[in-house]
């Protein structure tokens, strides 16, 4: 019998994620006179639902020893339509509105009832909501048609039809994005890749995996693991996100320090352009110096020039010896020292160096009812992972390193995982923060590249901003609960999260564009790994020059002249 209590943090995390979507089904349709008359007919129906749920109290912060599932009546904020929260966005009138004939065409094309969720000819509001709403509960589109193709050919035919008929399209993977890129803004057709989920091949010798875009990251990693390899990407949402979406958004994640970015690991891909052209560049070559490397445009292209339908990716050998240590540290200075020492002494076996501040860990414990690994409170925490091929060799190195950082008082306290389950619960302390941060109502997330020495001062400055402007406090009167900072120290990547009880324009105004200006002044990036989506689109100028943006627009124009692909977002 396993020590089951260890698995509980992980289980709770899964349940938080589930509950997020389950909440959607609590919204019930009811006739109401509250609808705004100026809206198109299809929006009216949604307005009813909105009006009915308006009376629900906003989420209150609870001492939450329990996962949301254990509190079925926990009041949940409704998600506002993106179109309402961002009144400046207007539906592009060039796009045609869906008709019954369009739906008929798609049904015949896909040939299966379960491949089409049709909200045009019938009422499918609840089913559609899971595809319309993002998991941060921040964005909500009004799409009335979800298509789930099974093959690249089907994707090609869908896009060609849409392009010919000026129907806007929103490609969607696991819908775990953090910038509103994965959900529609207005009535774009959602093309969800979930049914394209086959691993096509795995080569034991080279470690090259070829798989459909809709394969879940966890499944891809499990598949590689069966053959002694590892998927070069890992992130908190691995149980839901799809590898096609990972590639389309150029996700960074926890293994980047060791294995590098997807721009290097993806060897080839298959994609469909808006005009239906299938781009077959599913190369399994490590070297191919022939012409422009066009696949790079799709990596991080966020579905704006085409839909990625399959990828081929280089998977490194899985390390049999993995160790994880978790430290408490006194100051950000010490965190930097520890990072320098880790690089120096652990060098080739260092596979992750993650930083979390005390507030982030407290929030994690509060949202999950979990116990933190260390006694006492520390202003900073670090998680270090080593992976190598020889346990004895790694342990020796790690032990020397640990003795050193303890002896020099670089770290104040720490624990080392003694077995696999401890290893997983230590990782949960880092990976669980993202979900915990939106547990209490909402979160404004900023994912920034900042030069290491200045990385944490942003969090401190943000905190003092909220302390002085009266938006942050302990009771429900304040929209902001806390400001937390954590991230991939190894990649100079900070996640700044403003943890909210509810979404509030005042909060947004207090941070934006201040945070982007702050980052631009220090020559950082306003989006290190989350991408642009809808949230960061207006701010690209802080990280890219006019010339660069102009060149990007030319690419978009070239491949998607009608602009049907993931409109209103990116650039």
């Amino acid at each position, binding site marked *: 019998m396993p020590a089951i*209590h260890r698995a509980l943090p992980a289980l709770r995390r899964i349940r938080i994620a589930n509950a997020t979507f389950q909440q959607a089904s609590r919204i019930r349709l009811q006739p109401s006179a509250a609808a705004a008359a100026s809206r198109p007919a299809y929006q009216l129906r949604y307005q009813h639902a909105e009006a009915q749920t308006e009376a629900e109290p906003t989420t209150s912060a609870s001492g939450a020893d329990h996962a949301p599932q254990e509190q079925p009546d926990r009041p949940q904020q409704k998600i506002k339509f993106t179109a309402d929260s961002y009144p400046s966005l207007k539906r592009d009138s060039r796009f045609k509105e869906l008709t019954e004939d369009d739906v008929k065409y798609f049904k015949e094309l896909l040939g299966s009832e*379960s491949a089409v969720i049709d909200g045009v000819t019938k009422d499918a509001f609840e089913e559609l909501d899971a595809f319309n709403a993002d998991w941060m509960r921040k964005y909500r589109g009004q799409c009335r048609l979800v298509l789930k193709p099974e093959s690249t050919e089907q994707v090609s035919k869908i896009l060609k039809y849409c392009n010919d008929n000026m129907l806007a399209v929103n490609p969607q993977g696991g819908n775990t994005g953090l910038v509103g890129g994965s959900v529609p803004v207005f009535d774009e057709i959602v093309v969800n890749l979930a049914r394209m989920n086959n691993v096509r091949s795995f080569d034991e010798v080279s470690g090259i995996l070829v798989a459909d875009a809709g394969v879940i990251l966890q499944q891809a990693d499990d598949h590689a693991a069966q053959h002694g390899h590892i998927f070069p990407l890992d992130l908190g949402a691995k149980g839901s996100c799809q590898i096609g979406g990972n590639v389309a958004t150029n996700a960074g994640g926890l293994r980047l320090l060791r294995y590098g970015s997807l721009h290097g690991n993806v060897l080839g891909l298959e994609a469909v352009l808006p005009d239906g052209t299938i781009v077959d560049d599913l190369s399994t070559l490590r070297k191919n110096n022939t012409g422009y490397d066009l696949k790079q445009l799709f990596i991080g292209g966020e579905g704006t020039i085409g839909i990625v339908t399959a990828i081929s990716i280089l998977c490194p050998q899985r390390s049999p010896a993995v160790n994880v240590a978790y430290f408490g540290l006194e100051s950000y200075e010490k965190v930097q020292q520890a990072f320098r020492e880790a690089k120096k002494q652990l060098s080739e076996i260092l596979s992750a160096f993650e930083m979390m501040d005390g507030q982030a860990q407290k929030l994690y414990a509060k949202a999950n009812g979990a116990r933190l690994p260390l006694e006492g409170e520390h202003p900073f925490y670090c998680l270090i992972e080593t992976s190598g091929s020889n346990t004895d060799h790694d342990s020796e190195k790690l032990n020397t390193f640990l003795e050193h950082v*303890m002896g020099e008082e670089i770290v104040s306290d720490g624990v080392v995982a003694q077995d696999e*389950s401890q290893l997983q619960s230590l990782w949960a302390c880092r990976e669980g923060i993202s979900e915990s941060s939106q547990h209490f109502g909402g979160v404004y997330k900023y994912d920034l590249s900042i030069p290491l020495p200045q990385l944490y001062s942003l969090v401190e400055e943000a905190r003092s901003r909220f302390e002085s402007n009266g938006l942050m406090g302990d009771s429900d009167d304040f929209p902001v609960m806390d400001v937390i900072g954590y991230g991939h120290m190894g990649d100079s990547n900070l996640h700044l999260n403003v943890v909210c009880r509810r979404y509030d324009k005042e909060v947004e105004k207090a941070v934006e564009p201040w945070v982007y200006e702050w980052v631009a002044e220090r020559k950082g990036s306003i989006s290190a790994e989350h991408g642009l989506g809808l949230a960061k689109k207006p701010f690209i100028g802080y990280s890219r020059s006019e010339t660069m943006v102009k060149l990007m627009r030319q690419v978009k124009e070239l491949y998607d002249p009608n602009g049907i692909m993931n409109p209103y977002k990116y650039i």
Partner: protein
Amino acid sequence: MSGLRILVPVKRVVDYAVKPRVNKAQTAVETSGVKHSMNPFDELSIEEAVRLRERKMPVEDILAFSAGPAKSQDVLRTAMAMGADRGILVVEEKTELEPLGVAKLLAKVVEDEKRNLVILGKQSIDDDANQTGQMLAGLLNWPQATQASKVDVEGDTCTVVREVDGGVETLRAKLPMIITVDLRLNEPRYASLPNIMKAKKKPLEKKTLADYGIDANKRLKTVKVTEPPPRQGGGKVEDVDGMISKLKELGAI
């Protein structure tokens, strides 16, 4: 009353999170190149011993003991990092010890080291025998409380709550005694860095079976080890009608 002199036996086993695989000859589970760690039940018994001390019980000494390959010293170091005072390792590379052999060995250790309380995991997750504690109680003729979910010591009286089918049972006995522990007893701590450092300096004695005069020859012969039959994959149906006809086909409706 004199102080508590606790013996906590720990075993190095294949990590519980690792999926065990049967070797080609179907004689045992493959152990080479597989991650090993302390038997999870033994972590609980160490934790309980340390907590007794932290609850200001008169704990004189916590001795962690293991028998098996030399690598078992890793789990003894972990036990000491969690709070055991010292360790004894009986190195035996060749023969896999059986519960009776281990119980005889422990009986000798109890005698030599003048123990008056033995806290064991109720079973180890590799052979799942659940016998050693009971056999030891028999050999020493001591009272025993198995599957403990709560342990209290007052003077020389020990009160143990144990989980039984459909409820709990509370036992009381006088020291010396044997306690085997179950999952809900406590939540083991992480080995902290300062304690890992300290554990390296704690005494670890290495001995052999011969030192104790124990004959560890096997009495049991493992005939065959097989993996459970692979799970039959489920099928997917296209729609509700498909499901209904499938259920009919299977005779479920």
